[in-house]
């Protein structure tokens, strides 16, 4: 893939908050199936599969088929580790600042 295409694919893949959360989750759970990942998120298994497809096309996660199961893990490159870290930490601060705003609006 040309570098601009890669960058666009990564940018597009991370534009969606659910996908950012999913990417962070793939980093935390390591080798989880779509069903296991869906259990941790407020979206359906079908939606998770679709999001995993986008993350996989962007080279951020990779599927591994063993028998009838497909397990997902972060692509072993520092980039995806950094992306997962940023996605996870970003989601944490979003939630924290929302709570801080509530406290200060009282």
């Amino acid at each position, binding site marked *: 893939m040309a*570098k601009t295409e890669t960058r666009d694919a990564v940018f597009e893949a991370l534009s969606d908050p659910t996908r950012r959360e999913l990417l962070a989750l793939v980093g935390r759970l390591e080798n989880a199936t779509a069903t296991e990942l869906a259990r941790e998120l407020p979206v359906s298994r079908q939606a998770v599969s679709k999001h995993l497809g986008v993350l996989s096309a962007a080279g951020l996660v990779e599927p591994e088929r063993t028998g009838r199961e497909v397990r997902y893990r972060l692509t*072993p490159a520092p980039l995806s580790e*950094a992306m997962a870290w940023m996605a996870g*930490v970003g989601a944490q*601060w979003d*939630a924290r*600042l929302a709570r801080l*705003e509530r406290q200060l*609006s009282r």
Partner: protein
Amino acid sequence: MSDDVMRETEVAADPERVWRSLTDPALLAEWLGEDARVQLAPGGDLAIRTLDGEERTGWVETADAPTRLAFWWRERKGGDPTRVEFELEETEGGTRVRVTESRPLARLELQAAELTGGMGGATGGPHMLLRA
């Protein structure tokens, strides 16, 4: 590419009040974590159980009331030490709150790995995006 996460929001409260939210254990319990113990001075100890369920410990780097609070923390059971900085700026309607969390040490390790020519077996390399 830098590993910085930055978030910004504006709240309808003056910087002094926001500062109390950042430093008072009873107020911290409502939005960041419980059982906070913070020594508000450079080098002071910090411990908190975040609402995400992590036991975090660290130390204060800067505490300039009511504009700048910077500290380093890490999960007690391991994990990367990271640096968190809050910047408060008074605005017409209240305060702009900016928080930045970064991993300066991860960057140092990456640079060290590049200098020594190895990436510890990783297949992509730190600048995969730029080289691809």
